[in-house]
């Protein structure tokens, strides 16, 4: 095939320019590696920009009692102990420095009276811990990193979609993909690749995720021979908008509850008191006065059940609305109007105010919001080494949502932005060190490039007439119905069969128009990745016969201690997928003690 392509040469290629990708690129570049940042959208538009509530870091500015050990413990318990303990330790220890570093680069967080970084309450965190800027923390973070990266002179390839990782023997040799603007191809020859591609949420119908979240990272990593873990662990954020239908799934920050909001059913009852699990009973208030007093006096009161970890709250909301106690449009009410003054709400939650006012005609300072669960985050992803973020393929690193381990079975709010910073930095550092140790650029295999080009161009010569958007809509319906918040084996198997049919339909996909900026074509290509990760998620969900965190099996409703000791690992084998159960890394005794202390 004589299809032309450009060639670029770098030490390190970072795929994805959200918080993790930007932080990784900054670090790799400062370690002397010639670094390029490649992203699907314009710079500064990645999903990080939508993060609202804050960055979890035990700075101790509001509650001096807070420290990394408390944060570590909260993270592990929030993740139902399925977390990689070492990642959780590193994360809790390094998050404060990463937040302070953003301040050195120009970020302006909201302040305490003493002039330090203010911290807010969030679900599952024992102390007010989230550094924030109103409810637009992600914007502050991505803009700060973006500007810092630009001033460091890092080369950025915007609106470029990496489709395939290339290898030389057992190690990474490059990445190949297309410019969205022109539809022409380019090869990045490099020594190391950092995946920072984010999540997989666009495979579900009700989702807070943007078009970019198509599982490119896990799918490409599998293709390159890397392993995935915990793919059954998908987080449904308890509070997404549900009305009007066109905004269904849009995120409503947990900060609403962190700042005093409460969940109510149709009769106005604060139903979360009925859903306190044994696992969190000793640390959760069982009456309204104690729950309300906790906001200002944490020493003498237990946390409000409104701020149980997200998996618990999402299940409770689902159960209330399924039992006929929900709101008119099938969710429940989130009420801050009756609990905090209007000016406080507007100051603390300006974009929520704006979002409801403009999109739903609801004034959140006067009325309750209608909310329900929305697909938000995948805890599973590419298996990485805790210290270096190295995957099981030489020269391939992964950080942020695409990587797995830190959050276990359920992620606490605020732990994502800190994850991006802590492990983004480590990915950049270790990828640069790895690249600096590779003498010359590895060879790429021209046949692999030809294959990639043929695969990408195939939809243009398709004759089956399948519309890529129709396949996507059916995929979203399938995952929503069968691999959602509450799962049972027959439905999961239905999904598996349906995914096979969708794969066959994708073979017949036919794209209209040309190669220049053609979203229909882009969707046809993204579907391969979405189908791949959907299959991984479904297979792992069938395998794990218990309920834990983001994985709730109605046919196995209890957590099973035996399942709590293993990750489900997925690796490629002869073009197929192989699942296995592998033991979690053993936590050292001095950390285990943290879980034995009386709370």
């Amino acid at each position, binding site marked *: 095939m004589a299809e032309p392509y450009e060639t670029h040469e770098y030490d390190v290629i970072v795929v994805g320019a959200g918080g993790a990708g930007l932080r990784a690129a900054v670090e790799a570049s400062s370690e002397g590696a010639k670094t390029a940042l490649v992203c699907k959208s314009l710079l500064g538009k990645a999903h990080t920009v*939508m993060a609202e509530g804050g960055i979890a870091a035990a700075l101790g500015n509001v509650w001096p009692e807070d420290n990394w050990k408390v944060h570590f413990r909260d993270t592990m318990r929030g993740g139902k102990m399925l977390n990689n303990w070492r990642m959780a330790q590193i994360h809790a220890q390094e998050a404060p420095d990463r937040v302070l570093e953003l301040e050195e680069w120009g970020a*302006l967080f909201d302040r305490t009276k*003493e002039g330090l970084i203010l911290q807010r309450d969030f679900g599952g965190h024992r102390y007010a811990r989230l550094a924030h800027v109103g409810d637009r923390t992600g914007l502050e973070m991505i*803009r700060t990193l973006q500007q810092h990266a630009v001033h460091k002179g890092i080369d950025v390839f915007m609106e470029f979609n990496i489709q395939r990782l290339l290898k030389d023997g057992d190690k990474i040799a490059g990445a190949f993909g297309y410019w969205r603007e022109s539809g022409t191809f380019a090869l990045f020859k490099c020594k190391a690749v950092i995946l920072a591609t984010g999540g997989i949420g666009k495979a579900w119908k009700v989702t807070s995720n943007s*078009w970019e979240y198509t599982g490119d990272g896990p799918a490409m990593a599998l293709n390159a021979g890397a392993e995935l873990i915990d793919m059954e662990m998908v987080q449904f954020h308890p509070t997404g908008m549900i009305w009007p239908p066109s905004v269904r799934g849009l995120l409503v920050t947990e900060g609403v509850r962190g700042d005093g909001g409460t969940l109510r059913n149709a009769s106005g009852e604060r139903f979360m008191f009925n859903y306190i699990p044994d696992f969190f009973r000793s640390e959760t208030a069982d009456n309204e006065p104690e729950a309300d007093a906790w906001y200002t006096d944490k020493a003498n009161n237990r946390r409000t059940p409104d701020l149980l970890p997200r998996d618990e709250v999402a299940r409770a909301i689902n159960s209330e609305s399924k039992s006929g106690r929900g*709101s008119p449009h099938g969710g429940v009410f989130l009420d801050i109007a009756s609990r905090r003054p209007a000016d406080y709400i507007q100051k603390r939650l300006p974009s929520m105010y704006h979002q409801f006012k*403009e999109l739903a005609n609801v004034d959140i300072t006067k009325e309750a919001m209608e909310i329900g669960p929305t697909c938000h985050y995948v805890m599973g992803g590419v298996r990485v080494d805790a210290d270096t973020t190295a995957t099981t393929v030489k020269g391939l690193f992964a950080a942020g949502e695409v990587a797995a381990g830190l959050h276990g079975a359920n992620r606490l709010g605020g732990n994502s932005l800190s994850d991006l910073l802590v492990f983004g930095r480590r990915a950049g550092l270790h990828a640069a060190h790895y690249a600096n140790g590779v003498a010359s650029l590895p060879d790429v295999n021209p046949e692999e490039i030809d294959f990639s080009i043929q695969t990408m161009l195939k939809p243009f010569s398709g004759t089956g007439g399948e519309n890529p*958007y129709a396949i996507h809509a059916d995929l979203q319906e399938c995952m929503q119905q069968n691999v959602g918040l509450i799962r049972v084996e027959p439905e999961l198997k239905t999904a598996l069969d349906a995914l096979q049919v969708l794969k066959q339909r994708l073979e017949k996909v036919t794209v209209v128009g040309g190669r220049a900026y053609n979203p229909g074509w882009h969707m046809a290509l993204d579907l391969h990745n979405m189908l791949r990760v959907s299959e991984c998620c479904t297979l792992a969900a069938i395998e794990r016969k218990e309920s834990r965190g983001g994985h709730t099996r109605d046919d196995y409703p209890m957590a099973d201690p035996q399942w709590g000791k293993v990750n489900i690992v997925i690796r490629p084998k002869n073009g197929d997928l192989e699942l296995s159960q592998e033991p979690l890394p053993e936590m050292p005794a001095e950390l285990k003690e943290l879980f034995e202390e009386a709370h």
Partner: protein
Amino acid sequence: MATVAEAPIQPAAPAVKPPQTFTFRVWRGDQSGGAYQDYQMQVDEGMVVLDVIHRLQATQANDLAVRWNCKAGKCGSCSAEINGKPRLMCMTRMDLFEAGQTITVSPIKTFPVIRDLVTDVSFNFERAKEVPAFKPKPPDADGKRRMYQEDIDRVQEFHKCIECFLCQNVCHVIRDHEDNKQSFAGPRLFVRLAALEMHPLDTNDRRELLKHKAGLGFCNITKCCSEVCPEHIHITDNAIIPLKERVVTEYYDPFAWIGRKLSGKDRRGGIVE
């Protein structure tokens, strides 16, 4: 707690309004030219313009080029001109319009078209590279950074910018005079410069850029940028005018500049939200 609203729960009847039909007149084309094309679109309750564009893309024009990400007014990707008005498509509700009306959607005018509704906004990213970076003064003796909320309120207003570039799009200096792009950075970059200049910790010197390369003097404060800003940033009053004053006083009086940088506080006027 102080006064709060009463009776928050008022379950409304879940009445779904029947769909309405609109004619969508969408610009289709590329650098070599193009034309408006009409599509009949069914619109359901609560939809925004971006929803209709997505429905159009899925059903009638699979290759319709459009940028979007968050669909919640947070990322600034989906800027377009709707019935001639520059807006974010995701924040433009369809119930603004009468049923049966023709809705025209075209790409923002100030930047070159790539395809359909997508334009080449690289001008803004190139201009951003010219801005001298944030350069903080040393931390306090205990290693901490102290800033007070009242000293950062104004800069936080500037940090709300989502880079939708609608301000750049409506600014007459470049909308009507392509050649001015050589010597004028535009409102977005003025907001960025103001954010750096008024940052309590910053010590870098941007007077040369402000005075000459950014072309601040071209702005004749017609406030079009402030009016179009979806984040309601007071671009003219709080960013551009204080910068203009600063150029006048400090370019010719270096001691005023040093004094302000050392104090780390900005005491100029403007509207603080």
